[in-house]
């Protein structure tokens, strides 16, 4: 077992630990912290794939922005029901469905023969050049989507 595989195993154990915490804890505040564990560990997976810019973006946006906004939104709402969240009645069905889905997804993965490939480093200059030439129109559309979501959030959240 190479060192890379050992690091990958540790990081993916952290990812799955956080994910299971998110879907099993009864406290919304704790669920937010478990989500932070998962999202931070996914940044580690990106570093293993030599996508260091993506790891940076992952930590900045998920760790910095989304988790903070989530905690603020929870603080603005009622705190007394935080620690006693009940699951829906369809919980056994949900377990069956997700395990079946896992089997369906994994089966073709186990049959394919794509092996490993040695990665080359992708520098930020290439990424930026690609983004602003080949992917320019999707980039502009994404900025429009952000603007629409911003205005929509203000309109929906406003008291009238």
């Amino acid at each position: 077992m190479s060192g890379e595989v050992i690091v990958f195993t540790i990081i993916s154990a952290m990812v799955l630990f956080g994910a299971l915490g998110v879907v099993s804890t009864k406290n919304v505040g704790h669920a937010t912290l478990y989500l932070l564990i998962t999202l931070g560990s996914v940044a580690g997976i990106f570093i293993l794939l030599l996508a260091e810019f993506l790891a940076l973006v992952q930590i900045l946006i998920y760790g910095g922005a989304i988790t903070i906004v989530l905690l603020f939104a929870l603080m603005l709402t009622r705190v007394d029901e935080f620690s006693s969240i009940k699951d829906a009645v369809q919980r056994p069905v949900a377990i069956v469905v997700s395990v079946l889905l896992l089997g369906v997804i994994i089966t073709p993965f186990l049959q394919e023969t794509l092996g490993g490939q040695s990665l080359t480093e992708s520098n930020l200059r290439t990424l930026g050049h690609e983004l602003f030439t080949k992917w320019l129109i999707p980039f502009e559309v994404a900025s429009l989507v952000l603007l629409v979501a911003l205005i929509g959030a203000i309109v929906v959240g406003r008291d009238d």
Partner: protein
Amino acid sequence: MELIYFELLSAVLFSIGVYGVLARRHAVLVLMSIELILNAVTINAVAYATHIDASGITGQIIAIFVITIAAAEFGLALAIILRLYSQQSNANLDEANRMKW
């Protein structure tokens, strides 16, 4: 590194996210499970793109777009959830049925 490791990780993460979406009643917890699903998809995109070209630039750009849309969706969904709190004083999705006839 073999591609199968990343595939298995993202498949398990995706299934956990689907379980969370189906089994949770609190709207914020459903939203967090959706984030898990989006992260699983992102891992898969970045890992597969290293097989198209060795630098995997295309996958990274797709991942950036996924993160952007996730941020937009998250802000809008939190605004809707705050509105839900002020209307029915909890965020229980089973009770949010007033748009139904």
